[in-house]
């Protein structure tokens, strides 16, 4: 009797096993960050509250380093501002008005992972602060990632340190550009690929954002080329040491492209 009832039960278990495994793989493929925010809105807010408090405690003990970093960033921004003001005065005298291409929203990192294959961050700015999915996130020394989902007061960011993420980057001397991806091991190293083999002076060159996407502004310094090797015989793969220290990331800026809607509308017109 037991054997008779055991067979259907085993069969049910095998079918259930296969169904659950298939369902899990489907979820992995979908990677539903947005759905997760909808499902767990209240829990996520409570978790973010905890992450904010623990992040504050951690940063309290690093305040001296953080101050030095912010002070250096301030100095760089003042220098850039004075150059732009001089240029703006010249443009004013020619009666030319220029709207800024990008605007920025300051945010603090309340959660950050760097040792997984798909890393992410949580920022303390959300929908009510004007943050929307698809916006870029930058730091003083490089780019950080792309906003994947938002709640009222928090944003979930896909880190550039993740399988499948890439940044369009270029070499400062030659202007050669290609996708920069994370090989998945050290959080301060990335690979810039598809660089033509005739460019021989890449090692030691600075890597910048190319500006060929609507996500990140152009010319943000990302890192330094430390090694070059020929890949598949037709192009070079460059190892890049990032300027930004992802492990101690605290202040970041969410980037809004003021012309994004116009650019996307243009794409839609193309048959």
């Amino acid at each position, binding site marked *: 009797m037991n054997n008779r009832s055991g067979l259907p*039960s*085993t069969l*049910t*278990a095998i079918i*259930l*096993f296969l169904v*659950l*495994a298939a*369902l*899990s*793989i*489907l*979820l*992995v*493929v*979908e*990677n*539903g*960050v947005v*759905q*997760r925010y909808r*499902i*767990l809105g209240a*829990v996520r807010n409570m*978790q973010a509250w905890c*992450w904010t408090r*623990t992040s504050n405690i951690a940063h309290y003990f690093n305040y001296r380093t953080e101050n030095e970093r912010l002070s250096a960033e301030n100095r760089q921004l003042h220098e850039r501002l004075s150059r732009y003001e001089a240029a703006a005065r010249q443009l004013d005298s020619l009666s030319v008005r220029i709207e800024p291409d990008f605007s920025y929203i300051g945010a603090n990192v309340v*959660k950050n*992972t*760097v*040792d*997984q*294959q*798909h890393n*992410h961050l*949580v920022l303390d700015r959300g929908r009510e602060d004007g943050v929307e999915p698809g916006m870029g996130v930058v730091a003083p020394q490089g780019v950080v990632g792309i906003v994947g989902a938002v709640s009222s007061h928090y944003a*979930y960011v896909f880190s550039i340190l993740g*399988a*499948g993420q890439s940044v369009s980057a270029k070499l400062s001397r030659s202007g050669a550009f290609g996708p920069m991806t994370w*090989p*998945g*091991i*050290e*959080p301060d190293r990335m690979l810039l690929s598809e660089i033509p083999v005739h460019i021989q002076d890449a090692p030691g060159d600075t890597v910048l954002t190319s500006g060929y996407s609507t996500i990140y502004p152009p010319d943000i310094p990302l890192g330094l080329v430390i090694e070059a090797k020929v890949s598949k015989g037709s192009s070079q793969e460059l190892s890049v040491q990032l300027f930004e220290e992802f492990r101690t990331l605290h202040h970041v800026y969410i980037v809004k492209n003021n012309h994004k809607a116009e650019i996307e509308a243009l794409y839609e017109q193309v048959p």
Partner: protein
Amino acid sequence: MSRFRNILFFVLVFLLQLIITDYLHLGPWVMVSLLPFLILLIPLQRREHIVLLSAFGLGLLLDLLSGGVLGLNAFAAVMTAGPRKFLYRILVNRDRQDKTEIPLLRDIGWVKYFKYLLSLTAIFLAAYILLDCVSVRPVGFILAKFVASTLVSTALGLLMALSFQNRS
């Protein structure tokens, strides 16, 4: 252990796993997971489909709360829960089904407990790491991560078993 203490211990281990996921960062080479240990803690007498659904639910809950890729822990947990009873039979008790609900360190001994926990942990991490890294990371990295993670996670599971289960 009484049923209430079992449930409390189970919840505590799950909370510890959440804390580990959020705050313990040992680098890209090591991933620490107590989910295989939690699957080991599901009573042996439970029916297979209940065990599978419980493992799937646990994995999914961890995925939802940890903010990682949804489905990764759920997949690895289902892969571990599937052959759990079979592994128990061949590694711990070849002759008969054990009368104890949950395999305890003091009941089945160090060697058998270690082999059982190591097997569950290895299956879990093989499934997790393969799904996470395959085709995007080098084989050497995947193997090194698997070995390091299995050793650390098994050691932590044993430590948990030693600290709590042996007191009752």
